[in-house]
């Protein structure tokens, strides 16, 4: 029910792609490379998890990249200039971003506005606010940052599973459980199936909308903290376009852009596919890194076409039945 066939196709694409890469560069098939891949894409994975909920519910969140940018600047300034303890700064920015998401959700519901427009406004707001705080890159030198950066679990084969990769995996598993096993998760699918119908069936549509965008922004804030660990700096221009990368990961992962179907695990596979292409280009060394975007674009087209085909197939039996009644 929850989009398994598309997810299987994504998994096959990943495995076959990884196999091809490993045939050309045998070194790719090592825990070292895989560990780095997880670390490099940790923040995208976290944001894309939240985006999965939003898209399954029939919405979209364009503000996440800006929220990441704002978070890095806010955290850097709080720790380095305002002398706030890092943990307090983290809690503050998480509360702030959750409130930001809740506000967007409330606007979407109360004024019955398209999520695209509301989160587009949110995107400009958050990006503008981060420039207001600082236009230049602020390096973070707090000891907790070097501690976290140094921490890693050793994997067999010499790979390192870094702290931020672990955070990403924990959030991912949490996202899978939340979507699959809880009433909240069922309601997310219900909203994607039809807001009016879901409302008639007793789902508190307004509350759900607010919670979903709150979750997305909260995860974007988390991704911002992770990004600040990754770069050890806060910069208002960081993570530009990440909202589009995460939407791409969600769609490649088999989630229907129109809502109602999809899975977090598929999104994770989508993130890995994008990371794999990036890794391949790094190994090749001669290709421009923009080939990542081209490959992502081709995959997006392929998956959207595939989804349309599946949707058409799913609709057909119903149509035949209605016509045969006599």
């Amino acid at each position, binding site marked *: *029910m929850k989009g398994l066939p598309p997810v299987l196709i994504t998994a096959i694409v990943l495995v076959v792609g990884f196999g091809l890469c490993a045939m050309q560069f045998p070194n790719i098939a090592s825990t070292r490379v895989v560990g780095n891949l997880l670390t490099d894409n940790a923040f995208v994975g976290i944001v894309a998890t939240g985006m999965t909920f939003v898209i399954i519910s029939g919405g979209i969140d364009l503000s996440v990249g800006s929220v990441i940018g704002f978070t890095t600047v806010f955290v850097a300034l709080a720790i380095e200039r305002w002398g706030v303890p890092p943990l307090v700064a983290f809690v503050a920015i998480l509360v702030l971003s959750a409130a930001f998401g809740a506000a967007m959700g409330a606007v979407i519901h109360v004024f019955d506005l398209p999520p695209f427009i509301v989160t587009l406004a949110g995107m400009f707001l958050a990006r503008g606010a981060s420039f207001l705080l600082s236009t230049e890159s602020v390096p973070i030198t707090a000891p907790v940052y070097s501690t976290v950066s140094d921490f890693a679990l050793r994997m067999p084969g010499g790979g390192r599973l870094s702290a931020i990769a672990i955070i990403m995996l924990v959030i991912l598993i949490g996202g899978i459980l939340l979507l699959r*096993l809880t009433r909240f998760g*069922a309601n997310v*699918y219900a909203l994607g*199936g039809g807001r009016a119908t879901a409302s008639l*069936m*007793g789902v508190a549509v307004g509350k759900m909308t607010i919670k979903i965008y709150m979750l997305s922004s909260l995860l974007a804030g988390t991704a911002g903290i992770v990004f600040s660990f990754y770069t050890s700096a806060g910069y208002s221009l960081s993570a530009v376009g990440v909202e589009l990368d995460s939407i791409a990961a969600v769609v490649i992962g088999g989630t229907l852009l129109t809502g109602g179907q999809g899975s977090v695990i598929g999104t994770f596979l989508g993130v890995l596919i994008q990371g794999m292409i990036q890794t391949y280009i790094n190994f090749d060394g001669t290709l421009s890194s923009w080939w990542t975007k081209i490959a992502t674009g081709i995959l997006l087209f392929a998956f959207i076409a595939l989804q349309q085909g599946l949707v058409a197939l799913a609709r057909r039996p119903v149509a035949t039945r209605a016509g*045969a*009644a*006599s």
Partner: protein
Amino acid sequence: MENSLGPAPPLLEVRGISKSFGAVRALQEVDFTLRAGEIHALLGENGAGKSTLIKVVTGVFPRDAGVVRLGGDEVAPRSAKAALEAGIATVYQEVNLLPNLSVAQNLFLDRQPMRFGIVREGEMRRRAEALLTEFGLDIDVAAPLGNYSVAIQHVTAIARAVDLSARVLILDEPTASLDRHEVEILFGIMRQLARRGIGIVFVSHFLDQVYEISDRITVLRNGRLVGERETASLPRLELIRMMLGRELAETTSARAAAGDRPPREVCASFENYGKAGYVAPFNLELRHGEVVGLAGLLGSGRTETARLVFGAERPDGGQARVEGAPVRLQSPRDGVRQGFGYCPEERKTDGIVAELTVRENIVLALQAKRGLHRPLSRREQDEIARRYVKMLDIRPPDPERPVGLLSGGNQQKALLARWLATAPRLLVLDEPTRGIDVGAHAEIIRLIRELCDDGLALLVISSELDEIVTYSDRVVVLRDRAHVEELAGEAIDVTNILAAIAAEGAAKEARA
């Protein structure tokens, strides 16, 4: 039928409900009484107020006046959800469930069995299976609801409503998209629920089904209560009289004597023309200079016949001929190419383009017929518009006025002008006089006669039987999506039409 019910206290009591939309009084002082354990049919033609009544009772629309009592207690739900919580559930023709969720999730959405904040999927499926077994369904409840037929989706919706402890179940046209076998299953479930003491309101256009399943009948007409009767003691003719509002005594036809004119040339003919589940195959001949009326209740297949004739719907069998030559009518384009015109019932949505001027609306079909490569010059457009504004007396006589600002009758004339400008051989008019004031009404009828005298073939649908009798040379009567009788000459009067609509038996055979 179970009529052995004693005088039980009413389960649902609706008293003196009124509701207006702007100046339109949709309901006026309507009463409705539903007893526990009965199946109560709510009947009426288009605009009678059935849907409005249901929506007012279930809180979708606020009411202007009146009370609703459920089991003796006054209730005033403000939303469908609140009505559901109070115990009044509605299942609409378009199933209001989520096709992307599993059957089990649909049944238990927002009330799933939980443990430690986690949905107990296994327990939920077991309960869903147990619940559906009561309704005679043995299906995989983990599969998406959208994978199943409309009938199963209906039963699921009913099961959900009943499981939510509904005491009143309103079924709005539940059988419209079901086949005979599925209808039987649904009726079995309805009887079973009635035995459990649930009161069921059954809204349907299918009179055979109403007589098969219901204990009592309430009829509405033009927003007013016409009456409430025991089904067993209400003859079919009487029921139709209640629905259409005709006193049989007063129906001596006011028909203009058409006189005995020689048989005229056949303009278009249809043999065994039909579409499964839409209209049963029919034979129809349309002659030049002749008006054929289509009469029948709402949902009897009148509009469907018109759409097939015009080509707006594809037939799945039969042969159409125009002036004797076989033709294929697969799209409205084909219809236009054969010289057909069609004025649909929903002027506002299917007919006029309100923002465009009278002139632009009039030349629309002619331009479409000519194609994009041969645009009409502005002078030709002005000339055509002026001619028809004058001929049909469209008021105000200003071709540059947006059509949306005209009255209903004048909009209808503009629509007529659009097709007349294409010099059609056959014109199909669906409810040409609906929503038009009395003066314009007479004028449209006069126009229909005049057009006919000019040699045009006309196929006219109307719910106004007096009107049909006035201008038709022949009347085809439809019932339950089949043509059941054709009246001609002296035989055309309201009594005969009513009798044909009311006759039993034939419809069932046609549907089988």
